[in-house]
């Protein structure tokens, strides 16, 4: 059963609360990843020195301007306020039973604010929230804190887990490391309803990150639409292409049950047979022709080829490291096992 909490919604005061820093952190302290530290004095000092707002007679830090928000974040975080890092280590010492606060000794008088960052990049301080140690210019490597200071990992045994004994993992045969074949294309069923029309190949469809965009940004700027092929092309093997009578820069129609993509082919010996690549990610704002196979509706982008499947044992919960945390644990939106049909586009229709 989930846990239930009752909270008050004060809808008419949402704006007031949005622009003011509430007092719960002052009362309860802050922390993350199992750490905890008190901020009362630093908070109250900030109220005196930084913009503040009065609500029901109590002073609250103002969050009206983004810059004020930045300073509240920086001054109340351990990686940018050495005194708070020291406190957080002190708290961890009690839990762990070993000396740790010396890791912050040299940083106690370091405090970074927004204007400091604008002047020059600042390095993050040691903090028990992160597992790497960076004293004296040491490069950050994870788990050096655990290994050198004997602080457990946040797992069932506190050690690195080679064996995963959650009942769900036992059920799925993943309690031990193992090799599982990828989902078989027929059963994965991207092509249950799609038909081959004319010479067609079935390929595995990959969408890696490319050189000329970051996701869908930059790929559509003026330089790229001028210097590139004016679209997000499909990379395919030369022998595969030849078998479909496709030469470089021909238009191709890529389809499966989930949707359709129409774009140009880049024919390259770099790509192994059986695989094709469309770099992440096209935009519908440019170079999307219509698809003859789908009633001449406009085609789509790389995610027109995908459909979500979740891996069930990654849902395990309530058990050591198998316990939910936002963006931390749970099934993922995997997409690399996608299968498609590709054929030469019979006619280009915009």
């Amino acid at each position, binding site marked *: 059963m989930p846990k*239930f909490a009752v909270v008050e919604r004060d809808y008419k005061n949402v704006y007031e609360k949005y622009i003011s820093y509430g007092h719960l952190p002052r009362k309860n302290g802050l922390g993350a990843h199992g750490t905890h530290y008190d901020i009362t004095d630093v908070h109250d000092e900030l109220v005196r020195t930084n913009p503040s707002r009065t609500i029901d007679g109590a002073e609250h830090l103002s969050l009206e301007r983004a810059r004020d928000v930045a300073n509240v974040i920086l001054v109340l975080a351990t990686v940018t306020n050495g005194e708070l890092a020291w406190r957080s280590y002190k708290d961890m010492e009690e839990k762990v039973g070993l000396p740790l606060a010396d890791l912050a000794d040299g940083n106690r008088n370091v405090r970074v604010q927004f204007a400091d960052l604008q002047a020059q990049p600042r390095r993050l301080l040691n903090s028990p929230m992160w597992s790497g140690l960076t004293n004296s210019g040491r490069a950050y490597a994870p788990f050096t804190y655990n290994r050198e200071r004997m602080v457990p990992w946040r797992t*069932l*045994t506190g050690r690195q887990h080679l064996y995963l004994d959650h009942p769900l993992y036992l059920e799925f045969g993943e309690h031990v490391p193992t090799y599982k074949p990828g989902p078989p294309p027929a059963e994965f069923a991207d092509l249950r309803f799609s038909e081959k029309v004319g010479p067609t190949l079935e390929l595995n469809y990959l969408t890696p990150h490319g050189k000329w965009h970051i996701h869908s940004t930059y790929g559509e700027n003026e330089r790229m639409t001028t210097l590139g092929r004016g679209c997000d092309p499909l990379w395919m093997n030369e022998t595969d292409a030849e078998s479909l009578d496709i030469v470089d820069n021909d238009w191709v129609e890529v389809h499966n049950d989930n949707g359709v993509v129409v774009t140009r082919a880049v024919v390259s010996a770099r790509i192994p047979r059986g695989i094709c690549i469309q770099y992440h990610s096209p935009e519908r704002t440019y170079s999307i022709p219509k698809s003859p196979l789908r009633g001449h509706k406009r085609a789509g982008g790389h995610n027109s080829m995908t459909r979500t499947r979740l891996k069930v044992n990654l849902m395990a919960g309530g058990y050591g490291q198998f316990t939910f945390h936002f963006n931390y644990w749970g099934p993922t939106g995997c997409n690399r096992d996608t299968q498609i049909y590709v054929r030469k586009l019979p006619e280009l229709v915009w």
Partner: protein
Amino acid sequence: MTSTNRWIHDAVDPKTRTWEEFYRNRWQFDRVVRSTHGVNCTGSCSWNIHVKDGIVTWEMQALDYPTLDADIPPYEPRGCQRGISFSWYLYSPLRVKYPYMRGALLDLWRKARAEHDDPVAAWRSLVSDPEKRGRWQRARGKGGLRRVDWDTCLELISASCVQTIQDRGPDRIAGFSPIPAMSMISYASGSRFLQLIGGTSLSFYDWYCDLPNASPEIWGEQTDVNESADWFNAKFLAVMGSNLNMTRTPDCHFAAEARHNGTKMVVFSPDFSQVVKYADEWIPLNAGQDGAWWMAVNHVILKEFHHEQQTAAFLDYCRVYSDSPFLVELTAKDGAFEAGQLLRAGRLAGYADEENGEWKFLVCDENDGRPKMPMGTVGHRWGDAKGKWNLLPRDGRDGSDIDASLTFLGDVGATARVRLDDFAEGRSVHRDVPVREIELADGSKVTVATVYDILMAQYAVPRDGLGGDYPADYDDASQSYTPAWAERYTGIDRKTLLRFARQWASTAEHTGGKCTVIIGAGVNHWYHANLMYRAAIHSMIFCGCVGTNGGGMAHYVGQEKLAPMESWSSIALAKDWVPAVRLQNTPSWHYINSDQSRYEKNARDYHTVPDGVTPGGYADCHTIDANVRAVRQGWLPFYPQFQKNSLDVVAEAEAAGATDAAGVSKHVVDELVARKLKFAIEDPDAEEAWPRVWLIWRGNAIMSSAKGHEYFLDHYLGTHTNHISESLAGEAVKEVTWHEMAPQGKLDLIVDLNFRMDTSALYSDIVLPAATWYEKDDLNSTDMHSFIHPLSAAVPPCWESKSDWDIFKAIAKSFSKIAAKHYPQPVNDVIAAPLLHDTPAEIAQAGL
């Protein structure tokens, strides 16, 4: 001088070089402001933005990174060809300059507002009329956006939020914004607003498939990796699924510099990718077969460096820093043994009254063979007795030293034949494992083996005295995980694998573990990625590489590292005001709400599981059924949480006599148990359970991030789609109410904050002009380096744009004004939250 005269003048008197004026003008500036790019590229590069006459003219890499230490090359300059072209966007035709609204909606809204004084009533009149609602839904993605004023947009958005809260519940308002670390305050804007009103924040890292599940599986850690400078400390770099110069452009120089410094670098890639040019060796593994490679590498490492050579550093490391010595209970089944759960300390007489004894575990002491209970386990973490959550090799009860046994091989000679799965061949194999018997408090005995010995059997390492299906030698392809076996999957010959495995382990042995795997989406995006990663990580645990500079699993997919997490999350999740939050794992949300679950049957159709799994159990059901059970068990969140409005649920509980939170919780639990109240996930296609309002900011939720984009168009948006799938799940689903007809167009309203007119903007109902990365103050951090960067307003937001922070501030203001009439007094809301990591809920459920 006319321009013609000037040209002649230049030709006649070239020494004055007046043509250079054009060039100089182009690169003049009044001031320089530091900013960066919030694009989830992981770069987090410090840039100087040059401004002239209030116009951003160009950007250049900043050159003032502090040096880490004299032995490591400097970070600067950071930046790539993409970032240096960003200033184009500010004044480009793609820039969203004004607020826009879908014309079909705007016309209806103006008419409704003329008929209703109250904007909430006006919005209700539209969404309760299917014909009207369909009009703007069908127009989505078909153009027709019209410029409109800010106030109209803010009023409509606020009215839709208040109406949804009243009629459906606040958790029907959802927001998606990716990866906060790239612009933390901008992320915080929408999520703060959502959490103040009780809306749902959607996750991103798992949805993007950037989350490497093996990391929480093995370390209890989302992701924690080496900064790129630490590559220089590695002596062996194995690069797979990551194309460094292509996608880690500002960091790649550390790999080149490491090679100049003598580091060996091997690149695994099925194609001749760009990073191959840096490699000493290119191993063109078959795509998606990385797991097979590492399983066989581990076979070799365990056989040669552990079993035969007994490499002390490796064995000591595994004994102290891994679960290798812990005892696993073996149970007899069908004439063989099955490996089960870890043996709980509380079941032994000596530890029977131990606090959290079910969550403390056992090893055997090498000296006297007795079971002992090491400190540092999760039971020590969440016990009342503090100070015993550490890795010192001592017993948690009497403090005595422990010298834990890794293996029982040879000491008493007892073995058990254990059944293991060979999924590649779809068969069971049986291998002897050294075991002991341990007496429990009730006098019965259990058979146990160490994790280490079970792994030795699973990796098929033949050892004297152990019979069963072990391979004869490396050339025996009939048993899994030999180099000969791996050939079949990887396409790489066994000699190459043997050479790699030996070099890998001996480098670790001679350098104290300085072997690093640089890995990325090329591996992480497969369905079984957790197994591939896990095998690679095992190689580094076996060789003592984790937790040292120059060693470990360097996974770079997404800019997930938000360094100042503690204070940021208090603001971003409004925890400074509201102690509980609605945080949703997006993969489940989209799989279910966009009805992608309807297009498949039993997950066992494609996920290979052991023979003989429980029929209808987790390993033999439709994925949506598993997800429903996971929500009921408190494993995963799901919002909308109930079929009913959560505000009404509290009101009902109070009417039934509940006077406090405990009373409300009890009422809710009773109603759920009595099946009078249903979780929304139990009937997600019922109109009452649909999400209604979707706020999108800082991301491209409907294209780049929309796995199953065409199903979004169909079931969320209610517009044209190109999928041709038919619902298949009807007979397979047991836990959810099945609707023959799938809903189309679940969402009433989609709002997109954007500075680019991208695909998400094209499909939204309202597009709000957002400030670019050179027009707002914000913070940015990454795991590629250990610095924190500002984004700064080099110029004010152009045209009518505003920063995300200011936009949600404006929405909050407008919302509060409208809400004052409908909610003059505070109301109570009940939040259903899953069992959470880093809380005592880690010891909530010992069994299913």
